[in-house]
């Protein structure tokens, strides 16, 4: 079974703090993703990475950065946390897509971040 783990289930931070969210997958997947999930808005893509040291902006990258130093680990960084970044953060991974292949993304359990 694919396993995607996230370092924390719940996190409480103060405005202005630097926040690190860690994600690890054990299936040797090339692609990794960070989303945030808010009521009524669904999942929105923050950043993704298709290879080590590669990163691409998603739909809402402002206020976030990422790091992928190893294939299995993808970190999301909030340089200076703000209250509007209070949300559920979900990490996902998927294998390299091939024509006709499966591109299902597998999700971690999520980190619920509260910024005070």
């Amino acid at each position, binding site marked *: 079974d694919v396993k*995607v783990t996230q370092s924390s289930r719940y996190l409480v931070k103060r405005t202005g703090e630097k926040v690190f969210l860690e994600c690890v997958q054990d299936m040797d997947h090339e*692609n990794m993703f960070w989303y945030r*999930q*808010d*009521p*009524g*808005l*669904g*999942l929105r*893509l923050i950043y*993704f990475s*298709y290879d080590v040291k590669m990163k*691409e902006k*998603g739909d809402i990258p402002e206020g976030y950065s990422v790091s992928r130093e190893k294939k299995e680990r993808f970190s999301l960084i909030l340089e200076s946390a703000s209250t509007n970044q209070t949300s*559920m953060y*979900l990490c996902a991974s*998927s294998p390299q*897509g091939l024509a006709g292949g*499966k*591109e*299902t*993304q*597998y*999700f*971690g*359990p*999520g980190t619920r971040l509260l910024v005070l």
Partner: protein
Amino acid sequence: GESVGLHLPTLSVQEGDNSIINCAYSNSASDYFIWYKQESGKGPQFIIDIRSNMDKRQGQRVTVLLNKTVKHLSLQIAATQPGDSAVYFCAERVNTGFQKLVFGTGTRLLVSP
């Protein structure tokens, strides 16, 4: 409690009933679709997928139907059980040259014993 799921459309069914959850997708060029189930406090879990060259796919107790003419996807759950209670949402792969998924906002399924 979890705030994910507030403001969602809700489908309430009795245990044993068949459930149908609908999803309208946006891009006629999307070529791959997935249904996810998200239980309270957990990450989304893959249920079933379908490619655009198919119009129906069956799994264990679940069936996905795809109508490309009207850009509509549905998930049918047979003999719904209380453990099926969750938020269900669809995702479409927009063919941008990378496997980017666009997610729907979801439907909450409530199953009463």
